[in-house]
Structures are given as C-alpha cells and as structure tokens.
C-alpha cells in the first residue's frame, strides 16, 4: 500500500486538457483531414518502427527454422508418402490442363479474343500479424517504396491470400480473405455463377449472392471473377463445402474452405498491375479497328 503524491503542476493538467479538447474537436469537425495528417506523418514513424519489427521477425524466423528442422520432424514420413501420392495425381491433372490450355489458346486465337495482360508480381515475406484482435491481417516486408499500394491483390501460387489495405514506406498490411470485412468478387468455376466472397468469424470464407437457380454443389471451386480491381480472373479462392439455401431468400450462399491457409503463409506475391479496364474505359464506346 502506498500513498500517492498529489502535487501536480497545474500547467501539465492544463496542457493535457487543452490537448484532449483539441483532439476531440479535430475528430468531430475534421475527421478526414485528421486521418490524412496521421497517415502522412505516420510515414517516418512507420519507417522507424519497421526496423525493430524486421529484427524481431528475423529472430522469430530463425527460431521457427530451428524448430521446424530439428524438433517438429515427427510424422514427416507419413506426410512425405501422402505428398508423393498427391504429386502423382497433380502430374496427371497437369497433363490434362496443358491439353486444355493449348486448346483454349487455339480457340482464343480463332475468335480474336484480346489476350489478358499478365500482371507484374512483387514477392514479399510475411513478418508479422495484426497488432489487434479485430482484424485478420498479415504484415509484409515490402511497402510503398517497392511499388505496393492499397487495394492491390495478394496471392500465393495456391490461391488468393487477401488485399493490401495500408502501406508504410517499407511495410504493407494485408487484410486476409478470411476476414469478415474483406470482399472479393468470386465465380464458381463449373457453373460460372458470380458472387461476393467474404470471410467469416470462424476463419473460413463464404460466397454470397449466388443466384437461386444455380446448381452449385459442395466440391465446386471458386475463383476470382476479375470484376474488382486488384485480382485478374481465375485465381483460386476456395472450395465449396456447404450450400445454404434459406426459405424465401433471394439468393443462396455457400461456405468455402480457402485454398490458402492464412495462418501458415510465409511468402506471398503482390499483384502490382492486373491491367483491368477502368470504369471510364469500360463505359466508353469501343475503338474502331484500323
């Protein structure tokens, strides 16, 4: 038990009170401007903090590496066998897909389809997770100085990871596909029905607004539809595990298992330019052919 000394300089109290009032007035009267001030001045602070963040992430990776190499090797034999079986299956599928791709290319050339421009990808490493509990995000070791901007899509070779929501000069924050506040335009690959994919509080994803007449079923793959900025068409999002059809509802919805496990992702690719037409380009009359 101890006594508190109440001798506080009245100046400090006044300054604190004035600052608190100014801050509250700023939030109430000029929220947008205050946000941009915080974002602008946050650049140097973000740069400063990114150094210890990278250092701690480096130490963490080394410890994880040692753990993964020497301690967590139990059960590897069984996993290896399973992976070999999967590899055989994927080789077979790969052959079929090559055939399909060649056929598609021939048909596209015949129909004079415009070739979709390949996006530029930036490789980045995951160095941290969200600092709070309200959002599911990961922090990347590349930022605005590497050409990363808000709203760019983030993927792995397996599928969609999420979308960039915030950047500093040397880091970027990715809102994961499993976060309920994220929304990505999706397409059921087999039925070609479109919908919106959003995360769930259970760490899965859900495809909403599927037409009632759609015959989507569990096992169907959902890919990006390419209608929203950041993601070109055809990137894997997840596989449908359950269809929810409510009485008198206008749409169906489907539960998805995401293709990428966001808790285990270590390296990602940021889609720098998906070469999607802007709204102005889409609405403008088509150019006459020369």
């Amino acid at each position, binding site marked *: *038990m*101890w*006594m*508190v*000394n*109440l*001798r*506080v*300089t009245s100046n*400090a*109290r006044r*300054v*604190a*009170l004035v*600052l*608190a009032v100014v*801050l*509250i007035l700023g*939030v109430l009267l000029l*929220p947008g401007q*205050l*946000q941009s001030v*915080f*974002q602008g001045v*946050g650049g140097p*602070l*973000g740069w*400063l*903090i990114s150094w*210890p*963040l990278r*250092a*701690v*992430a480096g130490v*963490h990776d080394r410890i994880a590496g040692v753990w993964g190499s020497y301690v967590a090797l139990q059960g590897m034999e069984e996993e290896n066998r399973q992976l070999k079986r999967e590899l055989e299956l994927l080789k077979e599928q790969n052959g079929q897909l090559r055939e399909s791709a060649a056929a598609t290319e021939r048909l596209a050339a015949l129909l004079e389809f415009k070739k979709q421009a390949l996006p530029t990808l930036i490789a980045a490493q995951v*160095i*941290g*997770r*969200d*600092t*709070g*509990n*309200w*959002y599911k*995000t990961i*922090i990347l070791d590349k930022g605005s100085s590497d050409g990363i901007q808000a709203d760019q899509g983030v993927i792995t070779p397996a599928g969609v990871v999420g979308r960039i*929501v*915030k950047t*500093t000069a040397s*880091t970027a*924050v990715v*809102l994961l596909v499993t*976060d*309920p*506040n994220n929304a990505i335009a999706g397409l059921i690959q087999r039925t070609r029905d479109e919908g919106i994919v*959003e995360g*769930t*509080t259970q760490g899965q994803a859900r495809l909403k607004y599927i037409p009632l007449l759609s015959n989507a079923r569990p096992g169907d793959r959902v890919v990006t539809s390419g209608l929203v900025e950041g993601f070109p068409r055809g990137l894997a999002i997840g596989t449908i595990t359950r269809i929810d059809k409510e009485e008198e509802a206008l749409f169906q919805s489907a539960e998805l298992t995401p293709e990428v496990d966001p808790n285990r992702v270590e390296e990602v690719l940021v889609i720098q330019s998906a070469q999607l037409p802007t709204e102005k380009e889409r609405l403008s009359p088509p150019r006459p052919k020369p």
Partner: protein
Amino acid sequence: MKAFIYGVIIVGIVPVQSVVLPHLTLWGVKPDLGIVAVCLIGLISGELDGLLVGVAVGWALSLFSAQDMITGAILKGGLGFVAGLAGRQMVYLSPLVLVSGLLVVSCLVGLVTPLALKLNSQQDLWWAVWNVALPQACLDAVIGGAIYWLMWSQFNIEQLMSESRM
C-alpha cells in the same frame, strides 16, 4: 530519461504485439499491451503523459493493422488521460485494484472499439464481448498485474510517482 523510455515503449510495442504475441493467445485472442502500457503510464505519470503516449501508441499500433488510425489513437489517448485522472484521485493502489481496474477498462475499450470501427454485421456486440473483449481483458489484467508486481518489487513506486508527477 522519461522520453527515452516512452520512445522505446512506442517503437518496441509493435514488434512484440505483431510477432511475439500471436504465439501467446487465449482462444485465438492476444493481449493488448498498448492498453496495459498506457494505463500504467497514465496512473504513474499523470494525464498529460498518459494522453500523449496513448495517442502515439494507438497511432503506431494502427499503422500496422487494418484498424483506422484515428480510432486507435483517440481510444488509447483517452484511456491514458482517464488513467491519469484516476491516478490523481486514488489514495492508494493495491495490485488487486489495478488488476480489477484493467479488467474493467479493457472490457469497456473492447465494447467501444467494434462500434467505433463499424465492423461487419457478423461481428456484432455479443460476438465482440464473448470472443474478443472478455478474453483480451483477462489477459490484459494478468499481464498488467505481473508488470506492476515486477515494478513494485524492483522500484519504489511511491517515489517514482511523486517524481513523475512533479
């Protein structure tokens, strides 16, 4: 010296919160060291220090989260200010009172945050209370109590408070 310690807290809290604490979660929820630090600084050093460090910590944490920056800075800054005011009114502060206070304050912040952030309809108030606010408040209270006990065993807190508030 005080400014240096505050600087270390502001810069160091982000790596700890985003790299180390995801491994120390309770039902998938990690403690918010920002709340603990700001409350302790407010209580010990007064409302001005609490407010300024709170704004800086909230701002730094929200730079590395999807959370909007104003909400983070205002909530933590307000918390530091209130902690400073509370510290002035207290005649004595036992660890039990501190732990209970942190539990209540962290719960309140956990209730206000989803309203301020305008989260998805899946994340309603009931969900927020049971899945984030309560577990986080428990963790914050335990960690705050442990830090306070460490400080109490290492330093003369009465003297520290008197010097800080002079």
